[in-house]
């Protein structure tokens, strides 16, 4: 691993300010690591090396002159390739977007630039944040650093892979039905889906206007808090942007969990079609750990998962189809097979289907937030019901069906933090999510950090072939 990989943002910020490192050194290390690992893992689609080094030099000059933009000043990051950066391609990992250059920065990039962070490049994604690890796309799918023959998750696949492999300490992804939390789960990193509207989606190619969330992916929970601090906030140009009260997202990290109440909807992942025994044991252990750390933990009941899934998938497909309608008609073969087969059925979703799904969505959100999240501060839940499958197990003609339980909290819009919870006997990461009330990310992060500090899964990193070869 990089000498700096695994060092938290706060520690890197200290070393930048006390002269032990420079932004240029951090960026050069990240670029060197990407040079070695990207041919194997395909995390990056586009590496903007010259721009990154120029921005790093500027960051070093500013810091030397006493201009301090905050913790992220001079630190490298990377973006899922649906986020616009002026002058750079936004491909959405699709032939449909070939040659497209963004004309202006998305809101997230504006905020990260103000914070002095340094963009390394654009990361692999499932096509249009939907399709799947398809082979008929302009770039290969990102590979899981823990086992390159296994699925990295998606759609923020490149984001998770880049963080897990130490190519960057911070990546930005998006989550519509689990696309931050799923790859975080499969790649053993932290992924935060904030409250709906907390982070602006302006300049991010949409999959579903009503369900898209943007958020950070990092190695540690505290780093996710610092990243969220930089990118959260009202954007009047995103009509879905929330007017959230100002918050110190890392402010509760380090506190114990006494006084917090945690609900566990165990019925979601137990039963005949439930999670693998390893996942169930991990979730039970997570609940016991939070109790040991001081939380009051009780089982709760949520509405049937199938209702959340039906609601979310209908809304996502209807909106995704509408977004791509003209292109599907005019140049359907330019879409990858998985994306095409998932979008075109939207043509048959009726207006009544969509309205009923929206009504149900409101009802489900109320049932969660007026029910278990009235009597509890937090919930915990599964993300994946089994570890990463092998990539060669995916059928040729059908998008892989991932057994995930993430969509319920994009439907309700609650903040949800995916974090590592251990490894399978084969060494593949598994994890879970902590869910909070709307705009209570600070409490979610408090609980996640407490669990993380107790279990210390972040000390275990993937052993990659180039590293083994270099060490031999």
């Amino acid at each position, binding site marked *: 691993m990089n000498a700096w990989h695994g060092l938290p943002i706060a520690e890197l910020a200290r070393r930048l300010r006390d002269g032990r490192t420079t932004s240029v050194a951090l960026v050069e290390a990240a670029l060197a690591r990407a040079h070695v690992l990207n041919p194997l893992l395909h995390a990056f689609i586009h590496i903007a090396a010259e721009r990154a080094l120029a921005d790093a030099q500027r960051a070093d000059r500013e810091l030397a002159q006493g201009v301090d933009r905050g913790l992220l000043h001079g630190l490298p990051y990377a973006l899922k390739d649906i986020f616009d950066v002026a002058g750079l391609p936004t491909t959405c990992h699709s032939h449909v977007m070939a040659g497209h250059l963004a004309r202006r920065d998305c809101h997230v990039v504006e905020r990260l630039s103000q914070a002095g962070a340094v963009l390394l490049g654009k990361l692999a994604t499932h096509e249009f944040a939907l399709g799947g690890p398809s082979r008929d796309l302009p770039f290969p799918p990102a590979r899981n650093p823990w086992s390159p023959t296994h699925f990295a998750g998606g759609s923020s696949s490149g984001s998770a892979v880049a963080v897990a492999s130490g190519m960057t300490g911070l990546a930005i992804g998006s989550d519509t039905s689990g696309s931050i939390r799923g790859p975080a789960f499969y790649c053993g990193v932290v992924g935060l889906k904030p409250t709906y509207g907390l982070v602006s989606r302006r300049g991010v190619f949409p999959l579903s206007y009503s369900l898209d969330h943007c958020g950070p992916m990092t190695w540690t929970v505290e780093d996710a808090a610092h990243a969220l601090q930089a990118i959260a906030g009202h954007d009047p140009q995103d009509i879905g942007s929330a007017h959230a009260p100002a918050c110190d997202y890392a402010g509760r990290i380090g506190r114990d969990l006494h006084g917090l109440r945690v609900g566990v909807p165990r019925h979601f992942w137990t039963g005949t079609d439930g999670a693998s025994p390893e996942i169930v044991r991990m979730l039970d252990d997570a609940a016991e750990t939070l109790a040991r750390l001081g939380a009051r933990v009780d089982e709760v009941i949520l509405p049937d998962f199938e209702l959340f899934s039906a609601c979310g998938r*209908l809304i996502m497909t209807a909106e995704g189809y509408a977004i791509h309608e003209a292109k599907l*008609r005019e140049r359907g073969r330019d879409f990858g097979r998985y994306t095409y087969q998932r979008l*075109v059925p939207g043509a048959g979703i009726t207006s009544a*289907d969509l309205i*009923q799904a929206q009504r149900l969505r409101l009802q489900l959100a109320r049932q969660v937030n007026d029910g278990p999240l009235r009597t509890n501060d937090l919930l915990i839940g599964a993300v994946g019901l089994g570890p990463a499958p092998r990539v060669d197990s995916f059928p040729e003609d059908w998008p892989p069906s991932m057994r995930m339980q993430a969509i319920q909290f994009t439907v309700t819009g609650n903040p949800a933090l995916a974090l590592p919870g251990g490894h399978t006997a084969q060494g593949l990461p598994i994890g879970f999510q902590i869910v909070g009330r709307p705009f209570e990310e600070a409490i979610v992060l408090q609980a996640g950090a407490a669990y993380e500090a107790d279990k210390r899964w972040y000390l275990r990193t993937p052993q990659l072939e180039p590293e083994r070869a270099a060490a031999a």
Partner: protein
Amino acid sequence: MIGSDADAGALREEFDAALRRAGIVVPPERYLGTLDNYAEMRRLANLVHRSFAPEDEPAATFSVRMAMPSADAAP
């Protein structure tokens, strides 16, 4: 995902009608996979079509705040 032959036939007709209305011609090698996913969408749609009590009706689905000009909009 598709039940009896009669159900399958009706579903295919429904799907083909939707495609004609949308002006989409599905490439032959993608047709069955797309139809299978359409069948799944119909299954999901059946789950969300349910009756609501009057008190469950939302007050609104649109807010004028959505249409207010942003601070950055040109006059």
